[in-house]
């Protein structure tokens, strides 16, 4: 469960996030939808504890990201927008390093890595150095790295950006499986179809503010639009930045 309360963050004169509040409950997929530059990534970085908010709180399973950062991070797995792998290490070594940093080790860790490699269908690249990996291959390693400690809360920043059709399908499969396991999933996207297809709960962000939230049906009803795409346009006021 991820809770965000009245979150505000500025970079100099730029108000990136303004008074953002929402909850992402367990067992559901919550989508952060908004045009490029709406504040999705900044919100996620605040939740993850990478940045410090000006005001407001974020909590993961009840642990405040600022006051109890390490405890909060123990319950969270994050796929950042840049995958940032170690190019001179193999895919397996990349995953193992993060597992070890989370106090996993020995046989249990190796079994977990093997399971992730099987789940993500990446056995062919598992023991290659990640230098020269395609975006899809990098994404697989990065998501395996984020899930190695089986976190109750999973946050994915644009997980399908730059992926081909097959990789996108695989990624969506993983997200659905995480929901079936009863985990809390928060993911951001600017691709409307994807959000509409996957999400149980949608938080629409524009200009650093939450402009609407609810289930896809809620949003359709509220705007009186049959089509979800039209609903979004009605909410945001512009089609710009959405795909």
């Amino acid at each position, binding site marked *: 469960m991820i809770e965000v309360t009245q979150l505000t963050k500025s970079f100099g004169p730029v108000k990136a996030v303004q008074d953002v509040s929402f909850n992402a409950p367990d067992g559901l997929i919550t989508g952060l939808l908004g045009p490029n530059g709406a504040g999705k990534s900044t919100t996620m*970085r605040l939740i*993850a*504890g*990478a*940045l*410090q908010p000006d005001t407001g709180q974020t909590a993961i399973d009840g642990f405040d990201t600022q006051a109890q*950062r*390490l*405890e909060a*991070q*123990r319950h*969270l797995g*994050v796929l*950042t927008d*840049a*995958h*940032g*792998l*170690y*190019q*001179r*290490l193999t895919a397996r*070594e990349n995953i193992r*390093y*993060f597992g*070890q*940093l*989370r*106090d996993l080790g020995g046989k249990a860790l190796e079994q977990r890595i093997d399971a992730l490699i099987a789940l993500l269908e990446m056995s062919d690249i598992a023991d290659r*150095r990640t230098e020269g990996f395609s975006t899809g291959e990098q994404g697989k390693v*990065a998501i395996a*790295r*984020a899930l190695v400690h089986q976190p109750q809360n999973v946050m994915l920043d644009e997980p399908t950006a730059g992926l081909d059709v097959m990789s996108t399908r695989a990624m969506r499969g993983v997200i659905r499986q995480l929901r079936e396991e009863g985990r809390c999933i928060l993911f951001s996207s600017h691709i409307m179809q994807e959000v509409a297809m996957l999400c149980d709960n949608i938080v629409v962000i524009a200009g650093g503010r939450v402009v609407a939230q609810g289930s896809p049906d809620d949003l359709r009803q509220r705007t009186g639009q049959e089509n979800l795409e039209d609903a979004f346009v009605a909410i945001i006021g512009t089609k710009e930045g959405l795909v």
Partner: protein
Amino acid sequence: MLRRIWIIIRKEILDNLRDRRSVGNPLLYVVLFGFLNRTFTEQAERPLALHVLGAANAPNLVQFLDQNNVDILEAPADAEDAVRRGDLAVVLVIPEEFGEQFTRGQPAQVRLLVDDSNQSGSIAAGRAQSLINQYSSQIGALRLIARGVSPAISSAVPVEWVSTTAGNVGANTASVVLNLLPVVMMTAVFYGGFYLAVDATAGERERKSLEPLLLNPVPRREFVIGKFLAVFAFTLLATFLATALFLVLLGIPQIQNFTNIQLNVGWSVILAAVGLIIPVAFMAVALEMLVASNARSVKEAQTYTQLIAFAGFLPSLFLSVLPIRPQEWMYLIPTIGQLYFITDMSRGLPLDAAQVVLCSLLTAAIGAAALLATMRLYNREQIILGKSSA
């Protein structure tokens, strides 16, 4: 905590051992110094190639030079221009009237054309000059004997050069080489881990792996300690290698016979020198990491850390060459203090224990302050955003 730090160290070392550049860098310096030493030591005893203009005017002098390890080459007619252009380093000019003056017992002057700005040129000219002086005093002595006068009468005030440096044969050259030892160590300390310090900090951010790394539930200081210790280990390794190579190269009997340099520095001196240099390595790595972590990009980090490395070893290079008499306070300045300690030790002078302790503590304190500042930086969001801390 220790287990996690060890995991971080192991990853950084593995990661960088697979990078040819970071392994190549310290090795490059080691090899570079190997070459420097070789050319330095070989220069002295290699046959001296000397261009002579008018060799036919003084066959005896030329023969003497030839017997003393000089290769006589014929100089072009425009010898002076050739030296000015830099084509030739040194030319010995023997004028036509040489023979006539020589037989009459008058001073028969020869001229050495030298480009002083060319270092190997002045070394060669120095050797040529001392050989000709030797020839001159030999002939002078013979002339005095021929006139029934003892040659001793011509040397009114002889000077005996007594070297107190360990080792007597070739002591002069050996002491120059000893002066180089702390410079070799200082360079290795400042350059050995410099590439890695940049790669592990600014490099990690530029490759965008820093943010995911810092989202692990690990206190940030552990990342700093782990990365620091990895770079520190590399630096110490580079320092040991450079020192060992330097000594091995000069310790090989063949090279000693060949160069006439006897290196008589005891093991205790070398171990003490390595011990003295460890706090400097600690300071160097900590400062490099602090500066590299603050930089906005790898390029900027490289520029700044290079400045630190340069500023770190340059004083030792200068002071080892310049004949400055060390003042009391200079013994307390990090890097300069260590330079004098090592030089004094290899000369067999006793060290002032209080000075050694104080200087080492001061050096380590600067390192510790830099390390703490780096940890503080890692606890701020600027480290992820990559903006210089405002």
